[in-house]
């Protein structure tokens, strides 16, 4: 994860990440992937409203966001987060990945989109990409 260190000016300061998914399995799975990436501290939110609150409180370096969630779904959540922080780095991770939905997510402010199931390499590459923007 060379880029992570570069972004942090070569120092070993930790990056922060907010995992947003209604699925406890996905939060567990993504957290485990984050644990395998050096110097990332992950927090979690289980729905869109919780994500907005946690984003405002933590201002994480990047967000991993699901789309299909009960209540406030992922694309609208990204839109609201990006309204308050246009610099927010959001990576969408969803099995619902048809062209129109991907475009909708990117238009809402997401920086990239990974279809589920996600591999550690895909996740690393996406994080690298959003941190370099």
């Amino acid at each position, binding site marked *: 994860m060379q880029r992570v260190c570069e972004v942090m000016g070569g120092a070993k300061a930790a990056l922060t990440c907010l995992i947003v998914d*209604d*699925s*406890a*399995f*996905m939060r*567990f*799975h993504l957290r*485990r992937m984050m644990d395998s990436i050096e110097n990332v501290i992950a927090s979690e939110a289980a729905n869109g409203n919780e994500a907005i609150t946690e984003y405002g409180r933590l201002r994480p370096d990047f967000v991993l966001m699901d789309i*299909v*969630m*009960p209540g406030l779904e992922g694309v609208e959540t990204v839109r609201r987060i990006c309204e308050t922080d246009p610099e927010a780095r959001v990576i969408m991770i*969803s*099995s*619902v*990945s*048809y*062209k*129109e*939905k991907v475009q909708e997510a990117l238009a809402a402010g997401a920086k990239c989109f990974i*279809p*589920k*199931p996600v591999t550690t390499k895909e996740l690393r590459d996406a994080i690298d990409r959003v941190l370099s923007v």
Partner: protein
Amino acid sequence: MRAWNIGNEMRLDFVKIFIDSTSELIGEMIGPSVSVDSMTMSPSPVAGREVMAIIGLTGEAQGRVIFDMDLFTAVRLAGQMLGEPSPGMTPLVRSSIAELASMAIGRAISQINDEGTRLSMSPPTIITGSNLVSFDQCFETLVAPLSTSFGEVRMNITLQHLD
């Protein structure tokens, strides 16, 4: 006004996409030995095993997909997804099965949308228990049993194009 009528035709073209996506996904996540056994049409869903995942479908077509499996299969499938065996039906096992269903159907509806039909899905609902056979509506259902190396996962698919 759109209506979901008994007389509406089952979208078998879409049903095939659901089955193929599910087989493909289980193959990727659990292991490659997935086969679809003989499919049957039933006047209503036959799901009734101890673990059910239900996903609603809305849009230009409407219906639902019900996955059902026995407890042992669910625990073993989830253990494989989690990378560690589970002692029983824990909340994480329930969530793993829900996510497996969600990913399979999400992939299918992505293909269907890319082919031009608007279809969206609800988040999955998981029900566990015994004698789960009560459905208040009877709609023609395609039943597709998928054999995996951890046991059978049965799909009940009802999907009709709206008038």
